[in-house]
């Protein structure tokens, strides 16, 4: 009797304890859920723009919470209060409506929503303004299936790792060479689509430099095909001094190793990788020399594959998907697997890569544009610089092509254009690069390549 009683009591106590726990746990859980977690959260802004957005979000969120509580409370009250009771035969009053109530619950939400548009539009116009001025750094962003290219005003290019100085306005001018992507670093700003054939802008501004090894992660937010999930990138916020140092480092061409295992790696690199990848190295004459194709991809001045000049400095590869061997706590495994058979660790379809053959007449205009742009960049010292000599040769070849065309010799025209294209690094339209083929490198070659890349800091 006593034990039974105690057991029942204990059961009661534990039930009420559970209830109390639930009462406290539920709101705590909701609050915990609402505060941002993780490095990619939008709820823990790290810059003024993201903070403005977050402030607006919090305003709407709490208004929504109030409306939610009021409406659901009315519903629950009605359900509990007016439920059918077996002992009562209450006859409900047949209410058909009430015009005054209808007007009230039309006008109040309308006013509330109209009120919300004011801060919305204010913030909208503020954050959409394209920044201008001498202090603004403009970086070109090119979306590729499935990686990011960043072209700096100083003339170098990086892939998948963006460095920006703290407390500085950075204007991203973005376009795509293939399909629509979307650039998103939740801690610094909302997302912005990267659309082929158009240029969109996004402003980044960060309060503080990111601690070493903890850059802000970002990723593509518009479905862009097979490896959309693995189209990630990192944003490193540097102090002004660190940023200057980083720029100087990036401007330095990579050295060509002459001995040891890295030299073997360079042989493989020059034989295989440069089919698509670029690297700016110190040429034999001591001047910078660009290896690999340089030029336009589907009408956009862009790389065909990530620039590897300073691969040794990066902490990730495969578009922010894997750690490089020299990143903190990482091993060589992923990079080895990647060089062995990239498709085994990141989805891609190199079998669908397309670089169409050049035609004569329809390609003229584009080659012309590519040449013009190349000359312009060379004169202004921007982008990938071609030597005077190369430009001269291209120009001659192009004039030849036009002459052959006028003579009706299509074959010679194509030949001349083809040669000019190769020198210029011009890549014809409808180019599609969806992955890196399996080149059948053996383990020694892979080791050598890794040694080379590790040295290219």
């Amino acid at each position: 009797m006593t034990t039974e009683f105690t057991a029942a009591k204990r059961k009661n106590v534990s039930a009420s304890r559970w209830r109390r726990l639930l009462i406290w746990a539920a709101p705590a859980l909701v609050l915990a859920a609402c505060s941002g977690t993780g490095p990619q959260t939008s709820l823990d802004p790290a810059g003024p723009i993201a903070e403005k957005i977050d402030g607006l979000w919090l305003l709407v969120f709490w208004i929504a919470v109030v409306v939610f509580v009021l409406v659901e409370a009315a519903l629950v009250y009605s359900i509990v209060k007016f439920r059918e009771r077996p002992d009562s035969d209450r006859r409900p009053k047949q209410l058909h409506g009430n015009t005054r109530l209808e007007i009230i619950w039309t006008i109040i939400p309308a006013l509330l929503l109209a009120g919300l548009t004011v801060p919305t539009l204010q913030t909208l116009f503020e954050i959409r303004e394209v920044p201008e001025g001498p202090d603004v750094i403009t970086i070109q962003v090119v979306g590729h299936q499935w990686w990011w290219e960043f072209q700096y005003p100083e003339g170098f290019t990086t892939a998948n790792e963006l460095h920006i100085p703290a407390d500085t306005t950075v204007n991203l001018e973005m376009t795509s060479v293939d399909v629509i992507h979307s650039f998103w670093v939740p801690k610094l700003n909302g997302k912005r689509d990267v659309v082929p054939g158009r240029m969109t802008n996004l402003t980044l501004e960060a309060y503080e430099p990111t601690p070493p090894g903890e850059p802000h992660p970002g990723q593509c937010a518009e479905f862009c095909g097979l490896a959309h999930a693995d189209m990630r990138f990192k944003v490193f916020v540097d102090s002004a001094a660190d940023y200057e140092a980083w720029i100087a480092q990036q401007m330095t061409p990579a050295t060509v190793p002459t001995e040891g295992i890295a030299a073997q790696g360079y042989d493989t690199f020059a034989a295989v990788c440069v089919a698509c990848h670029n690297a700016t190295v110190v040429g034999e004459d001591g001047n910078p020399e660009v290896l690999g194709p340089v030029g336009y991809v589907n009408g956009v001045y862009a790389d065909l594959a990530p620039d590897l000049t300073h691969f040794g400095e990066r902490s990730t590869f495969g578009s922010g998907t894997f750690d490089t061997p020299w990143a903190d706590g990482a091993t060589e495994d992923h990079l080895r697997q990647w060089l062995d058979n990239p498709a085994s660790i990141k989805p891609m379809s190199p079998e669908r890569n397309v670089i169409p053959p050049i035609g004569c007449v329809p390609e003229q205009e584009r080659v012309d544009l590519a040449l013009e742009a190349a000359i312009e960049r060379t004169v202004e010292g921007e982008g990938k610089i071609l030597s005077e000599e190369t430009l001269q040769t291209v120009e001659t070849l192009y004039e030849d092509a036009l002459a052959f065309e006028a003579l009706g010799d299509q074959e010679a025209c194509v030949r001349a254009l083809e040669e000019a294209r190769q020198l210029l690094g011009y890549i014809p339209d409808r180019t599609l690069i969806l992955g890196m083929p399996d080149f059948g490198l053996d383990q020694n070659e892979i080791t050598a390549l890794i040694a080379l890349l590790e040295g290219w800091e």
Partner: protein
Amino acid sequence: MAVATTEVQLTSTGPSGLWSWLTTVDHKRIGLLYGISALVFFIVGGLEAFFVRLQLSGANGTVLSADAYNQLFTMHGLTMVFLVVMPLGAAFTNYLLPIMIGARDVAFPRLNAFSYWVFFFGGVLLYTSFVVGGGPDGGWFGYAPLSIEITEVVRMDYWALGLQFLGVGSIAASANFIATILTMRAPGMTLMRMPVFIWMALVTAFLLIFSLPIIGVGLFQVFFDRNFGTLFYVSYAQGDPLLWQHLFWLFGHPEVYILILPAMGIVSEVLPTFSRKPLFGYSFVVFAGIAIGFQGFGVWSHHMFTSGMGPIAEAGFATSTMLIAVPTGIKIFNWIGTTWDGVLRFKTPMLFSLGFIAMFVIGGLSGVTHAIVPADTQQHDSYYVVAHFHYVLFGGALFGFVAGVYYWFPKFTGRMMSETLGKWHFWLMLAGFNLTFAPMHILGLNGMPRRTYRYPEGLGWEFWNGIATLGSAVIAISGLVFIWNLIKSRKHGEIAGPDPWDGRTLEWTISSPPPVHNFDEVPIVQHRDDFWHQKYTEDDDGYLVELEPVSGGTAVLTGPEDHGDERKEIHMPSPSYYPILSALGLAISSIGLIYQPVGFIITAVGMMVALWGLFGWAIEPSQREPYYV
């Protein structure tokens, strides 16, 4: 001979056998066909979602490859939107529309059959893709130029043609519904006496007719880009990928209301019945529905706030999006007003309707946060959006349709569904639904993008993804309970009788299931909720008063009556196999288009079959044998 046939038809279910279903033009059978197809596709689409959830249950999931994942999430979206929720709307509208307005069938019964078969073959086309090299993998929205990028793989060709097909079926059905509602109402059934469900069906039909041609044009452009060398969406040829987004969402946003309005109509029928009160603010609910229909065409670009339209356009669409919340709010307040001071009976249809309101409020509020453009640039294409539209389309539309199934199942089959299983179904589905989709709000705000087949460790997404997957298992169990309930009740359910819920509208005046011709005598309607007025009235203070049953309580029912030897001939359409033949011909010819140039032979064959069907249809008499009541 003729007399013998009609006697068979006098039974409530009509002739049986596969052939009778293939050739049926009876709106009730076509409604059931839509419903059963939707249920089958619901199981398929649900399994697709379940695999997606399994893959995402933890970081770096390995259940699916990226390719398989992309196919499954694409087909899950397509299936749930076009092959489940849309046909559910068509199912209820088909079955109930003529009965609720006192008609014997729709205006064009053979066109109705044609609509169903076109829909059916559209679904088959979409799924055929799996057999010939994988399902569509470019997202249900098929954004160009991704959807035109790889033309050697025909997956997105099946997508373009399958959707085109489903569109044709819906346009034909909508024209039919509009004609029926506008011309075939029983005497006295004025527009403002129509059940709200019929009003919503009317608005939906207009939305379909005006929105589907827009995506039709876009789909042709994509198909032509893929197959015939046009350059509509090729950026380096000055084609504009954003044009596709405008065309798609100018269809796609009205589509959202196409999905939700029929469910809103159902809830507006269920709530009064189980509250023993008329719908609060009938005319406001109706006009709010119409307002949603109009406004629905003015908000499409809120799907494109990150595409770079410029702040002026974004400001305009932000404002219009906020305003569309007003009529939606009016509906919610009126539903709560309907339950207020009523006597609420918590039968399963009522539970699902109340669940609909509770969940739809959440979806509506998160929708308003999308109108805040700067905040939307964080939410867009993240799991927050996935949470939002599931609260609207699952917590909203699907809860509403399930309420409808429990409510009208007795009318469709003559038997009640099990209340016990129904309650299990409701509570499991409510719990599973919230477990699955509530965490997605948090995931999205914490930066998790949609349509990603895997995510790395260290971003803090594992816990809530785990919970969501757990929730999806609970939803799966609730689905099994539902299916078990349907199967069991179909055979062994309690006999329903004509009016099991104490209903208010005309469908409850006839036997369950109804006779082929619905009404022996076309009813004469004197009130909104006419049947209720035959049973009840109000006293001077507006309280409910039960009327004395007229002559033993059965005479109010206009079920089959004994006419003695005097048989009255009425106009009822005869079965026809031409609709299915025409639809089949069109399906064959479109498959041929994908495999040009050789496929043009298939197309030619298909066109001949279609022409045969259409000619036969044109010259056959609409009624081959006299039909007697």
